[in-house]
């Protein structure tokens, strides 16, 4: 019987195999899109458990992604040098939480340490998730979808209309984020392989976290909420608190993905906060199957990669919209990858016996 970590090992093997394949065929430029795919996958991993296990839909996850990305971009590019006399900036400089460098034109540039900016991004996303989660999670079904859609629109409009956030241009020149010695989250061909492994390593870590969560007491509680909320309450499960915690958890995952992708690509623009991005995340979860972590990761890897390589052309958004409509019409439970595998395995076994 395959253990519960078998798919995780398969995923790890695929990640390594893909890298070796690109190295062998001299197509390592694919790794750039594959790295970006990994960060988008991190968002849908969070959304997958929110939708599949807690039964909560969110059409606002691009908003959390953007909160993470923009917070990081703003804090790591905001020049503290002219404000060095002010107490907060002075304290940051003295404690080494700010880093000094020279910009393109040789002027002094002092910015917040990316690690601290990253933590600020996660904290802000978590805070916003709590604030909007408390009222919004009282809603159900399409009312919840509408409310989260509204939240996504607000974030989009705010980043588009704020000059400090670059308005329609977004923010650029985001510095590298040293995650570990030798692993710098930034673009460029030199760090391509390290970045690829760092990004997919995070996805695997996220999946591992979700797997263990689902097998725990909390996971059983979530499944019970999905099954029957009243019955779950009658067993002593604080359903409202659970839904909120899961909402915050998925928002933090989205914000982390947004922040890291911003470091990787060196900037972020308002399109990352757009409604179509949120729809895209929901569509991927739908294609993967609502409570199917592996299906979602697979669907995300395939669709995001094809989209980032530009295979869908001008029909990019239409493909994801079409996926969503098609899935809802013909396979609301997702493409049953599991059932297909089971059938295949039965077929192989039948062969062996004869």
């Amino acid at each position: 019987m395959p253990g519960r970590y078998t798919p995780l090992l398969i995923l790890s093997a695929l990640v390594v195999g893909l890298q070796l394949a690109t190295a062998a065929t001299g197509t390592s430029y694919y790794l750039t899109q594959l790295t970006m795919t990994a960060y988008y996958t991190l968002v849908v991993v969070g959304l997958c458990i929110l939708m599949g296990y807690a039964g909560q839909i969110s059409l606002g996850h691009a908003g959390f992604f953007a909160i993470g990305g923009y917070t990081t971009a703003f804090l790591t590019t905001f020049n503290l040098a002219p404000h060095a006399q002010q107490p907060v900036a002075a304290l940051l400089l003295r404690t080494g939480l700010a880093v000094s460098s020279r910009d393109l034109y040789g002027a002094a540039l002092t910015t917040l340490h990316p690690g601290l900016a990253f933590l600020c991004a996660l904290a802000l996303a978590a805070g916003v998730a709590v604030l909007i989660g408390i009222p919004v999670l009282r809603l159900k079904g399409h009312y919840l979808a509408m409310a989260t859609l509204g939240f996504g629109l607000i974030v989009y409009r705010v980043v588009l209309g704020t000059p400090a956030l670059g308005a329609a241009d977004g923010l650029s020149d985001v510095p590298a984020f040293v995650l570990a010695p030798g692993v710098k989250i930034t673009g460029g061909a030199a760090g391509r392989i390290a970045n690829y492994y760092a990004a997919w390593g995070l996805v695997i870590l996220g999946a591992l976290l979700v797997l263990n969560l689902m097998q725990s007491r909390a996971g059983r509680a979530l499944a019970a909420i999905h099954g029957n909320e009243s019955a779950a309450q009658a067993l002593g499960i604080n359903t409202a608190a659970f839904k909120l915690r899961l909402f915050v958890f998925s928002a933090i995952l989205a914000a982390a993905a947004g922040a890291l992708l911003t470091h990787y690509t060196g900037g972020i623009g308002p399109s990352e906060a757009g409604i179509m991005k949120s729809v895209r995340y929901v569509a991927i979860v739908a294609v993967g199957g609502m409570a199917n972590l592996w299906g979602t990761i697979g669907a995300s890897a395939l669709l995001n990669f094809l989209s980032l390589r530009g295979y869908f052309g001008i029909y990019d958004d239409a493909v994801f919209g079409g996926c969503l409509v098609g899935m809802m019409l013909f396979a609301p439970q997702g493409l049953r990858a599991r059932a297909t595998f089971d059938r295949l395995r039965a077929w192989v076994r039948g062969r062996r016996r004869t």
Partner: protein
Amino acid sequence: MLRIRNLQAGYGKLRVLRGVSLHVRAGELVTIIGANGAGKTTLLHTVAGLVPAQGGEIEFDGTDLTRVAAYSIVGHGCALVPEGRQVFAVMSVEENLLLGAYTRPTRDRAGVRETLESVYRLFPVLRERRRQYAGTLSGGEQQMVAIGRARMAQPRLLMLDEPSMGLAPLVVKDIFKTLAGLHAAGVTILLVEQNARAALAIADRGYVMETGAILMEGAARDLLNNNDVQRAYLGKDYQSIGERTLPGAETQRQTR
């Protein structure tokens, strides 16, 4: 243990409970019988906090349950076996049971194991099926899961809503035998039933409920022998019609 005074509750503007008062003493098995729509389920849901009380009080071991959120009422020692069983179909039997122990501290692993074993001793068939999806069990086995799940919280009061619903007569007999066994072991039980005869046969006391109010209260034996109860809920005349087959029997049944 449980004392309900002048309880009023309902859904929106619809008032279902119009001043219900009753009590359950520690160690008692009390049953509430009554026809469809009398408010029996609403009463249990109100005690469990699933339906908010609009007036009156529910005192459980000194706590006013009308002020306690639904999810923490189990922690106070009052567990509900809901109507229609409500097991989680795509979870295994054991997962369903472990969920019942949700309110117990996570450190108490050994204690939860022990309770799980006691549930398996109570319903040996559940041990055989513990890896099976609860949705694939028969109705009677699902009822066992529902009762076992409530027992996992180690409640001081066990409330059951129509445990006989939709089950074969033989299975109903088994379930009631189990309830009688639990009662004999000292468990306090509040049982809501439409199957009045079976419920009164194992109960200490009974309440008759009609249109949102308690109509009658008494020892189970007295209620079983009470003429009004017999006519309204035990189908005495109906049975005697069948036995006598008198010429005027048909009309007599229709007038009832």
